[in-house]
């Protein structure tokens, strides 16, 4: 029994070991050499810790001061913030495998032929759905079961919703999108044709090249965080509080502000490196299995595969959504039990994909109006999401939420609270 307990608690209880084992099986199935198997297996384990270090840097060394300031101004909202990535790695791994297997079965035996292959999203959806369950108080089999059902449903439904939209953009049907843009893209696909005219395309405009630096999202993100810190500094002072005490710095505000702003970019860079290492061996294995099991599968891919079809739409949509989401953040301040940060990533990636869809269906006017509405929607989703993630991953949601993560996480949270 002691040995069995050791295997269950120490080996499968360590997310890094569990995911490394998954990668190892994948590498062996791909008939890689012994040295490749050893290298890939260890890289996956290292990637697991790099990933969690990166998320920790963003939530602990960059945006923590803003969250502290908000909780001081509006007490009673601070949650326990359980480390989902670190403590529930194995559950995330199990959900990933079970949901992918269900996706393959559905693709094999029904007309829904999409197979979800966006690497980092194979990790983040189980992460969000496990967090939503933990936040609602679920444990054990119930937690894994509900998260697996939601991940599987998402992996099947979202790419099939995206298929007609991808066809409108590319004119082809050989791939779909598997990415949390679905809510915003479907919304854009519904709004744009009503309000716009697709013969007047964003792509016919000449945009100045100097706007290109905005596409460097970890830089744009750092700039946004630095602005929020300055706003918070004055808000604290106006409320008679000491920024030094609330933010907790001994020296000058300048170095605190500079380091916390730059650490946003640091955290994003580290996190991306970790995700890359974690999925580098698992995704090729999943792809190999899918090709064997599902003839005629339609891969559901990362949203940037569409970006080449509408670089102008992307940039216009990004700027519009940043403006309307920031205005919404200011207008709704104090309404939700959470601070809300400018959603740079969501405005660029998820909304960018939606902008390209909007342009294909409603031209310039369609793109601007749809993205303006998307900017409002994403802030409301992060705000309402606080009720379902404040004890777990709300700080992560402040940076990466406001789309399918928030919407489907909220739905799971509601169901989980009924089951609990």
């Amino acid at each position, binding site marked *: 029994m002691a040995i069995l307990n050791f295997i269950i608690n120490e080996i499968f209880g360590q997310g890094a070991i569990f995911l490394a084992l998954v990668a190892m099986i994948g590498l062996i199935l791909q008939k890689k050499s012994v040295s490749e198997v050893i290298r890939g297996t260890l890289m996956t384990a290292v990637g697991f810790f790099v990933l969690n270090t990166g998320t920790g840097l963003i939530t602990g060394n960059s945006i923590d001061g803003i969250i502290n300031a908000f909780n001081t101004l509006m007490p009673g909202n601070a949650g326990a913030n359980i480390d989902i990535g670190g403590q529930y790695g194995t559950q995330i791994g199990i959900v990933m495998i079970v949901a992918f297997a269900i996706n393959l079965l559905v693709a094999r035996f029904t007309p829904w032929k999409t197979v979800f292959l966006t690497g980092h999203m194979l990790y983040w959806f189980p992460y969000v759905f496990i967090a939503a369950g933990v936040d609602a108080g679920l444990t054990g089999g119930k937690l894994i079961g509900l998260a697996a059902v939601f991940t599987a449903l998402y992996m099947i439904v979202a790419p099939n919703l995206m298929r007609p939209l991808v066809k409108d953009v590319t004119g082809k049907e050989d791939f779909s999108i598997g990415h949390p843009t679905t809510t915003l893209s479907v919304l854009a696909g519904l709004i744009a044709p009503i309000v716009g005219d697709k013969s007047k395309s964003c792509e016919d405009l000449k945009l100045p090249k100097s706007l290109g630096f905005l596409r460097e999202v970890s830089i744009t993100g750092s700039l946004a965080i630095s602005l929020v810190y300055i706003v918070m500094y004055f808000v604290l002072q106006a409320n008679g509080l000491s920024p030094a005490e609330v933010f907790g710095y001994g020296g000058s505000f300048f170095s605190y502000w500079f380091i916390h702003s730059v650490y946003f970019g640091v955290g994003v860079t580290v996190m991306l490196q970790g995700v890359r290492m974690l999925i580098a061996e698992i995704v090729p294995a999943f792809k190999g299995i899918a090709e064997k099991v599902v003839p005629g599968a339609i891969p559901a891919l990362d949203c940037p595969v569409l970006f*080449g079809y509408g670089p102008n739409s992307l940039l216009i949509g990004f700027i519009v959504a940043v403006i309307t989401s920031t205005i919404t953040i200011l207008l709704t301040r104090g309404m939700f039990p959470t601070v809300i940060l400018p959603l740079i990533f969501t405005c660029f990636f998820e909304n960018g994909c939606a902008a390209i869809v909007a342009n294909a269906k409603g031209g310039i006017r369609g793109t601007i109006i749809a993205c303006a509405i998307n900017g409002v929607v994403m802030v409301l989703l992060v705000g309402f999401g606080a009720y379902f993630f404040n004890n777990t991953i709300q700080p992560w949601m402040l940076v990466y939420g406001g789309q399918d993560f928030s919407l489907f996480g909220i739905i799971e949270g509601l169901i989980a609270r009924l089951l609990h």
Partner: protein
Amino acid sequence: MALPKIQCVCGFGCGSSLMLRMAIDDVLKKNGLEADTLVGDVGTCLSNPCDVIFISRDLAERIADRAEMPVVIIENFMDNAEIEEKVLAYLNEFNK
């Protein structure tokens, strides 16, 4: 002889670049060739040691001026014929 090191780059280095890397691995296998393949993101790819960067057209503009290694532009990450042609052309050049 050292294997050529091919870096596939997209915005995050997680999604589309990984698809490209897998497509390149398929091309190498099909033609009985060998190369090291890795993925990177557009922000940090120039600091990763490699012999060549494969990248999409919109991102290529952002590294073209600073890259010391050859940069190969892939118009369509989903077009296996284009990927095969460009990988083989590069490897011919590399092995000269």
